[in-house]
Each structure stands twice: as C-alpha cells, then as structure tokens.
C-alpha cells in the first residue's frame, strides 16, 4: 500500500503544511431526501463493508434503529413525520452521518497528529491507530457525528469508504442505495445533479426545495437535496447554518496561539525581569 494513496490536505495537530502539492478530484456524496425510502440499505451496506456489527437493540417506539450513531453505526436513518402544509403528511427520512466538511471541526479540535486527515479529494478520515480517545472531535463537530467506542476508546465515523475510493470505487452506501437517493461523483457534478433535482421538486410543488451545502463549514462533501431547504431543522434537527461552534473556534482557534504566546511571554517576562533587576536578595545585615 502506498504511503499516501490519497493526497493530503490537512492533518490534525500538525502546524506545518502536509504534502499537498497534488490535487485530486474533489468528490462528494449527494443525498436526495425526496428520493429516500428509508430502507436502511445504506446502514447495512456500511456495516457489512466496514466489518461492523452493532448491538441488536430494542425498539423504542420509532423506526430509527440503531437509535443513534455509534462507533459501530456510522450512518443511521432519522425519521420525522411532519405536516408542513396542514393535512399533508410528509415522512422526511434523513441519512445521518459524517458530512465531510471542507472546514472540519473534528480535525481542528483533534490533539493527536494524524488521527484525523483531510484528503485533497475532500474526505475527512479518522485513523484510529493515531487516535488517543480524547473525544475532542466530538466537541469540534458541528453535526455531532463522531462516537467513541466503548470497546477501544477510539473515535469512529464514516470514512466515505476511503478504501473504496482509493481504488476507484464508490462508497458502499452509494452503491447499494436502491432508489438512487444517494449518488456520488465529482463535487461539481453533484451540485449540477442537485440543481436538476431541485428544479424537478419545484415543479412538483416544493417551492423551497434546495441544496444543503452549508458554507459555514466551507461546504460539505456530503450534501443533501431538501424539499424544504428553508427549514432544515424539519429533518430531525439538521442545523440550519452550521459552523464550528464559537466556543470550539475560540478554544482551538484564537486561544491556541494566544494562550501559548501568553505562557511564553510570562516565562520571558520573568527571564528579562531577572536580567534587569537581578535576584531579590536579603541583605546581610537583616540576616543577622
């Protein structure tokens, strides 16, 4: 296996640029919620391909199973029954999972070098052998996606099947999707495809149909076509305008250099104080 089968754009806890001269095609997965039948084939294909088996859980009164993302369920369907227009029931079913942000909060927060890597094709991938299990990625993620495994205390999430993409295949969920609600390709092509879908939806009466490619995180490499793009929260709480939390931004942004600088300056201040003023010595006479 080549050292860099996919070329790197960013790497966690690394202050210098990663080898990033080569630019591969930016890819994206587009999830068209208006075509999704919530069959969970993507969930099964994901688990099967990635050799994961989550717990056989319980029914908690809804169709969602497993009930939430876990270290072994990297994608789940979230079902929402809504009536946007009165007496017109809509069953909005959203495939939840990593959005592969262009500006990934997880990577920004990660304190372990190389545990999170962003490839130049847009995939944000976790490398568990470098993961220290601190959970900062969870803190950093605007979509609440990564999960720490109870088994090995490492963080896991969708890899966008980087192993398949590296050899020129589409992700497992994309391949399996019976209705073609999930499509995959160059990001530009996906945006173009989405435009066609939005036009179709508008012609069917969904006047607010649109593409979900939130710019607050620099755009994502997993995008949605929404019937109601004006109200993403209808889709089981999809954030309307997600961005890396201001607190995380402070913590891993401004605070990082400033506080480091502050500490350094304090040390230096002491040093120069000593150079200038010398030691505070008790004079001999008082010693007596």
């Amino acid at each position, binding site marked *: 296996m080549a050292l860099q089968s996919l070329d790197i754009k960013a790497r966690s806890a690394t202050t210098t640029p990663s080898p990033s001269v080569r630019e591969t095609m930016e890819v994206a997965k587009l999830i068209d919620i*208006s*075509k*999704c*039948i*919530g*069959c*969970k*084939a993507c*969930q*099964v294909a994901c*688990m*099967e391909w990635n050799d994961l*088996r*989550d*717990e*056989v*859980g*319980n*029914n*908690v*009164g*809804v*169709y969602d*199973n*497993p009930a939430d993302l876990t270290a072994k*369920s990297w994608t789940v369907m979230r079902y929402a*029954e809504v*009536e946007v227009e009165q007496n017109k*029931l*809509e*069953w909005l*079913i959203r495939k939840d999972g990593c959005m592969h942000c262009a500006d990934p909060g997880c990577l920004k927060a990660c304190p372990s070098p190389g545990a999170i890597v962003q490839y130049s094709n847009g995939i944000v991938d976790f490398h568990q052998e470098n993961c220290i299990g601190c959970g900062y990625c969870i803190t950093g993620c605007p979509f609440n996606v990564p999960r720490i495994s109870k088994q090995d205390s490492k963080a896991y999430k969708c890899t966008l099947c980087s192993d398949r993409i590296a050899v020129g295949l589409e992700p497992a969920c994309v391949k399996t999707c*019976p*209705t*073609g*609600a999930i499509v995959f390709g160059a990001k530009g092509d996906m945006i173009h495809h989405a435009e066609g879908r939005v036009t*179709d939806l508008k*012609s*069917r009466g969904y006047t607010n149909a649109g593409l979900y490619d939130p710019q607050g995180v620099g755009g994502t490499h997993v995008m949605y076509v929404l019937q109601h793009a004006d109200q993403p929260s209808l889709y089981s709480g999809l954030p309307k305008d997600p961005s890396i939390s201001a607190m995380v931004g402070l913590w891993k942004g401004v605070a990082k250099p400033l506080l480091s600088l502050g500490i350094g300056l304090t040390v230096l201040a002491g040093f120069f104080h000593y150079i200038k003023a010398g030691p505070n010595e008790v004079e001999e006479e008082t010693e007596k």
Partner: protein
Amino acid sequence: MASLAPTFGRGAMTNHWVDIKNADLILIMGGNAAEAHPCGFKWVTEAKAHRNAKLIVVDPRFTRSAAVSDYYAPIRAGTDIAFLGGVINYLLSNDKIHHEYVKNYTDFSFLVKDEFKFENGIFSGYDAEKRKYDKATWGYQMGKDGFVVTDPTLKNPRCVYQMMKAHYGRYTPDVVSNICGTPKDDFLKVCEMIAETSKSDKTMTIMYALGWTQHSQGSQMIRTGAMVQLLLGNIGVAGGGMNALRGHSNIQGLTDLGLLSNLLPGYMTLPGDAEQDYKTYIEKRAFKPLRPGQMSYWQNYGKFFVSNMKAWFGDAATAKNNWSYDWLPKLDKGYDLLQVFENMNQGKVNGYLCQGFNPLASAPCKIKVSGSLSKLKYLVIIDPLATETSEFWQNHGEYNDVDPSKIQTEVFRLPSTCFAEEDGSLVSSSRVLQWHWKATEPPGEAKGDPEIMAGIFLKLKEMYKKDGGAFPDPILNLTWKHRQPESPSAEELAKEFSGKALKDVTDPKDKSKVLVKGGEQLNGFAELRDDGSTSCGCWIFSGSWSEKGNLMARRDNSDPFGIGQTLNWAFAWPANRRVLYNRASCDLSGKPYDSKRKLIGWDAAAGKWTGSDIPDIKADSAPVEGINPFIMNPEGVARFFAVDKMAEGPFPEHYEPMESPLANNPMHPDNPKARANPAARVFKGDWETFGNAEKFPYVGTTYRLTEHFHYWTKHVKLNAIMQPEQFVEIGEELAKEKGIKAGDHVRVKSMRGFIIAVAVVTKRLRSLNVTGKKVHTIGIPIHWGFMGVAKNGYITNTLTPFVGDANTQTPEFKAFLVDIEKV
C-alpha cells in the same frame, strides 16, 4: 395469479421491472413496493426523474412508498374493489377510456347469456349451503358458427360494455368514500390522474403484491385493477401493465413449474376424478378459438403434455398407455395449504414434508397450525435455517407454550444449502430465468435440495423395487438419468425441463426440413410434438437451454432501443418475450400507438413483427390476418367478463372482509349473504373463531417491513440490528384514546389469540370515516418469532383468521379484527 389469467390469459406480471421506467403514472395499491421491492422500486424513481412521471399510493398506511409519492390517498383495508369499481365508473361515465383498444382488444362487444344475472350482491347460480356457484349461466351467447356473438356497436344491453356500465354505475364517488373511508376529494383526484392515461401516448402501470392477494376477495381486487388498465389501454404497452410483484425469489418459477396441488408444469392442470378418458382430458384443455382466426395457443396442450410425460417417464410413457396418463394422481378437490392443515387437524394426514417453508409462522391462526402439526406421525423439515416449524414441539416460553412430552410427532430436520452454495436458476417477477453460480461449500454436512430429494427418492425406489408396495410403476419408471444419481446436477435438470428432441423434429410445412436433430436440445416450445418425439419438463421454459447453450446464464445487458428490454440478458419465458401481449401496443394495422416507446411493430417489407421486444404473437402473421394480442385466451382478446374463471362472479363486486368493522355490506345492506365473499370457503368450526366489531373494534392488518424478509432475516444479524424487536403501529388518535405512548408495551388480541409488542405511535395511520363511523387501523409487522438472532417475539399469525381467497385460498392477512390494550 388466479386473476390475471382469467383476464389476459397468463398468470404473471405483464411487464417487467426495468420497463416501469417507461410509465407516466405509477399506481401502487395493494402493495408497498418501496419497502418490499426496493431495487425494483428504483424504476419508479427513474420514471419520475426521466419521464416526469407521477406516483400515486393508495394504502391504509402512509408507507415508505407513500413517503416518496406525489399523491397519497388512504383507504380502509379490504375495500379496494369498491375504490377501483369507483375508478371504472369514473372512466366510463367521463368517457376516459382508450376506445380503439377496448373495442378491438377486449370483450367489450361480446354478448353475455341472458340467464346471467346479478341480484342484491349475488350472481346467478348461487348455492348458499355449499357457498359455491353453479357457473352455467356465466357465459357468452354462442352463434351457430361456434363463435361468440358480438355487437360491435356496443348498443346491446347484454354486451359486456353495457353490462359493466350498469354494474359499476353503482360505485359513485360518494359510495366509494362511504365504504373506503377515502375522502371524496382524494378519490376524485386519484381518478383524474388515472384518467389522464387513457390517451394512447400516456401509460400507467399498477404495482401490487400481497396487499391485494391476501384478502378473502383478493383475486377480484386484482381483476378490478386489471379492468381499469384494460379500459385505459395500458396492457401490452411499454410502461403499462399489471405488475404483480411476487414475494419470494422463485415463487414465479415454482408456480411456473406447477408446484401446486392442481397443477402440472407450465400451467397445465391435473385431471379430476371424472376425467378418466385421456382424449377428453386433452380436448377440454385445448381450447378452440371463440372468435374467427384466433390463435388460442392452448390448442397445443397435447404437445406440452406429452412432452412433459416423456420428460418424466421416458420410454415408459407411450402412445399405448396414453403417455402414462393414469400415473398422474387425480383430484377430488384442491389440496391447498389451508385444506391440508384442515385435514391434518382432523387427523387425516400422517406425514408432512416442509422444504424451505415455515408454515407455523406463515400460515394463519397459529394455534390451529400448531395443533395440526402435533397430530402428525412424522414431519420432515428441509431448510438451511432453524425454523419455528421445526421446533413447534419445543417449549419456548410465552412464545410457544407447548408440552413436548404430549407431542408424538417424529420430526426430522435436514440441513440444506443456501443460494451461495448451489448452481441453478430462479425466475424473477419479470419472468426472467437467471442462472446463478456456487461460490462455496455449505456448512457442516448440509446438502442441496436436489441431493436431499434424490436421497429420499432413491431409498423409496430401492424399497419399492425390493419389497413392492402400492402402485410402484411411476416410482420405478421415473426418469433419473443423472451421472451421479444421488446428486442430480443443476445443469442436467435445467436441460431436462428446457427439453430435447428424442427423434428428429421436422418442419410441419416441409417434412424434409429437420428443425432439430434427435438428441439435441430444443429451441423452444414451437418445436414440441405430441407424438412422443420430444421431451420437455416445462413447456414455457422451453429453449432456456438450447444447443446454443445455457441462455439463462447470458450476461449481455445492452439495451439498444433504450427502453430497457435487454433481450440478451438471461432468458424470459415465454420465448424470451419481455412484455406480455405486446401486440396490443400497436393499432390494428400494426403501427405502435406510441412510437417513442415502441415494443414491436409490423414491418411490411420484412413480412414480420420487429422492434425492441420479441413479438408475443406469431412473428410472421400480418395484421390483416387479424390475430388478436391475447393469444392464450380462446377469445383472442382480454376479458372484462371473466366467464366461469372466477369463483365469485364474472364481474368483481365489493364484499366486506370476513371480519369487518361493519355489520353489513354497504353495497347490499339488507342481504347478509352478500356481506363477505359468498364463495369464500370456511371450514366447519372456523366460523366460531371469527370475531365481531363489538369485542374487537379495530381493523388489524399485517405486513412486511423493508428491513426484514419474511421469517428469514431474524436469523441475520445485520437485519436484526436494523429492526431488532417486534412492534405494532397505531395512530396518534387511537393512542391517545387508549393512553398508549410510543415505546409502551401493548397487547393486541383477536378472537384467536394475542401478541405483545412495543407500540409505535404515528401520524401515518389515521382513522377513517366509514359509513359515518370512525375506523382505526392497527398495523402489525410480521417478522418476529421464537428463533433467530433478533429479539424473540410472538408469531403474528396467532391473530389471523383461517380463511382464504375464494379462488386461490390465499389467507386473509390484510384485514381482520383486533383489540388493543396497554400491558
């Protein structure tokens, strides 16, 4: 399939999966394709994406199909005939029918016998005692020339058109809404959308499945849908059709191969007790054309039958012994699943073999099935998985509370292979025979079904050879020309059912021309002969393995016409035709109604039918010869009037489910005989097991979830993770009334037992206003049991009634009465 054959001539999905993409409108009713057939449903989304097609879903539940539909209309379970009858009325009264089509390709102009009557919900000839009809009056007026009398002006009140108009004129939108609970506006909107497709360049396809078949009047529901499609001219055309979505991967194939009580391969039928004479047996089935110049392809019945008997009994089947006609068992009645369990319950059955079938879970009224199995002397289970049936005698606590010491049945459990461990072919719903290849050895000592059948059969044969016994002839003479007799190979068996020439087969027009040499594989059923010179185990599959090789294994997916026919992908019966009755896609002159979706057309220069599909008609018969598209029907046309082919009447009529929330049939409120299907068979003692609306006020309906397949995938970890635990669905209104919250445990009970499951409370099930009364529906998914890796649960069929459709005896799983309470 006992509803499509009486209408069109063949009992199979008329079009195919990929063809759905050619539709302008898709009606999903009596099915839930998105959940039950997701990969086939893909072609609905393709039609929407590329043809701007619309999808309508009519269902008691807002299903995952409804989630992606353009229009959803609710309906009370079991009232589809009323709904579709209303659609027929709408189409006829608004003149939204394909005139040219119905006039030429249906029985619109045929005159019906004067004695035929329909009064107060009952057709002429009813015997209330036996719950059966004498169908003598259900026929056409016959002319002296031996053909049916017709009235091309359609004015005669006894012509099918006029009779239909009168019959369905009663199903007004108000009546429909009153019975079905569908709001009138919703119903009319659906009618409008459907009516659009009466134009010759617009097509609608109907996709249905068990949501229609599993009713006591299921076959007639399907027929009503078929009639709607005929009125619109949507049969035989690309993007049209009645798409019967079969449940299991090879139900189509096993039905084609006749694995049913009364069938022989290729939809030939076993003789009854009265048919002692071979010639009459054949003549009765080799239908003479009812209109001049029609093909009536069943005229070749003799060829199919003789070739079949040659395949089975080889040299022992001779002209002298009527091709071993007497070796076939004769029927005194049908022995369908329900009848067999009834017999078993009466102690009339000693042994039972279940090959890959789990009746304890699949058959209605678990308590009766369990009791019946306990009366067997021996039970043989052949299955890759540990099924509930194989452990019916074992105590599994609340889920199967029996005392093993009281059950004297000897049970054998034989491990069989699964798909990955065998070669062979399966017939998809599209009638495509597809070959598959073995990848690995089975676990442990498991053996393939053919090996197991051979193991049992060869032992029996050895015993009969050595010790003699009752009528050993057919056993000793059954052909068994396998290189490894104990392990017949898929290749040998496929070649046997595809058929071969035993002697040279010559062209009937030119005897010197040899079509196929003795010993060679046949090219198709046209080469079958009734003189014993051909052998073919299933005539409709003939040609699937010819001298060209295994056509079922072909993998060329090219689609040169772009409408999805892929003629070189595997092999479709009959004769590799992909859309049945495709002659009906052209007008009388042979010109396609819609040139953009051309299936076939008459090519005068070439003197044959050409196009994207294989013509479902004699390829060189010019349109002027007047052969009509429905070649399996002696009429040559499709039937609105089903003559004597249906148990409960030539025209579908709405009857209530056997267990209904209504006290009477709103169509015939004062005739209790016409409340439920008058011809549905109910066994003595089962009447007492039916509940009433006072004690069981809610409509129960069972169904499948997309995450599971029947009772198999509870053994599959991945699927168990996706839907781990048994649940039932109730509407928010009912939940509130009953104080049930999502996630609570509830007990659902019917007259026959109860189940306990988690409650899913949803907006997707709403109460309906039926005859001024509020009707709630409780949804009950079926997939759980007491074996498997998913959480154990109750067998859903604990609740269901032991009654079936009057024609097919398919149990009524979709509409029955239950009550619910919080545990």
